[in-house]
């Protein structure tokens, strides 16, 4: 076949596009302690759109660098830059 799909490491941008803000997303505070605190579901939409993407965040903090500032988590929740370039080589 001419083109075959894959999820290998060549598609890091695709991985980023998915695993940062899609699927089940847990608020940062919720991970700190769960027992004794009631978890509430803010949104539970299934098979519908999620508009936001943290790819912008990823780009903004230079994700492809190996390490990110220690307090990166708060940025992760708030910071978003205005634009993102799609630079990945298309094979």
């Amino acid at each position, binding site marked *: *076949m*001419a*083109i*075959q*799909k*894959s*999820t290998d*490491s060549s*598609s*890091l941008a*695709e*991985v*980023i*596009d*998915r*695993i*940062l*803000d*899609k*699927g*089940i*997303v*847990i*608020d940062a*505070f*919720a*991970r*700190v*302690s*769960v*027992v004794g*605190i*009631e*978890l*509430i*579901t*803010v*949104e*539970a939409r*299934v*098979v*519908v*759109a*999620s508009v936001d993407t943290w790819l912008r965040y*990823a780009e903004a903090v230079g*994700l*492809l660098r*190996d*390490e*990110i500032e*220690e307090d*990166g*988590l708060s940025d*992760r929740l708030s910071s978003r830059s205005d634009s*993102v*370039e*799609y630079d*990945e080589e*298309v*094979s």
Partner: protein
Amino acid sequence: MENENGIYVFCGIQTETPSTFNSILMDGEEREIYTIHYKDAAMVVAEMPMKIYHPDKDNLMMHQQVISTVMNKKDTVIPISFGNIFHTEEDVIALLKSLYPQLETLFPKIKGKIEVGLKAVGKKEWLQKNINQNDKVMKKKDVVKSKSEAAGYFDRIQLGEMAKNFVKSMRDDIQTNIHDELTPIAEADKLNEPIGEKMLLNAAYLVDREKEAAFDKKVNKLHDIWKDRVDFKYTGPWPAYNFINIKLKVEETS
């Protein structure tokens, strides 16, 4: 706090049988991947140092790699976003309990289904060739060229708007000719915003495993038709990231 271990969660699966998966190397140590259960729902987890996991390449790929391994063995995988670690197994059970009503309805919907992604990026030469055939745009281009930078300010804005509309029409075209051809084979589909100006389609499809081959074939057929004009980026199988959207927050009980 420094040396404390926590329970990192990768994804949810539907099973009552405790399972293990290929272990991973994390922070120089081998970590066993196992399951924590509540009723017929389970979380695929690993014991890892309790800390903030930065979304760097290694960590992201570690998360994805585990999910891929799980997907090879299980047919009902609910993806969890990157970087979630809990103090104890009890916390994960509490999470499962609170999620259970949603998991229960989700399981049958995603059982045996995978997500695939398709991005179509317009080739520059083709886009250029197309816009050069537009008389109105070409006329405006000449106007811009004939004026000084200051005098042509509004013309340049208009030219930019024309270019934007042109890309929009290309996107509509691709949606009709590529996306609409694929949706009948998919269980569900989702159009995401294109990333960058040249991207004409950024879509995700939920596909039944039984129709996976047919879907691949259709994508290839479309690629044959379009390959001189656009580049395809076809990825998967992913768990249904684009089709499951559950956001959890905590509220303190007083």
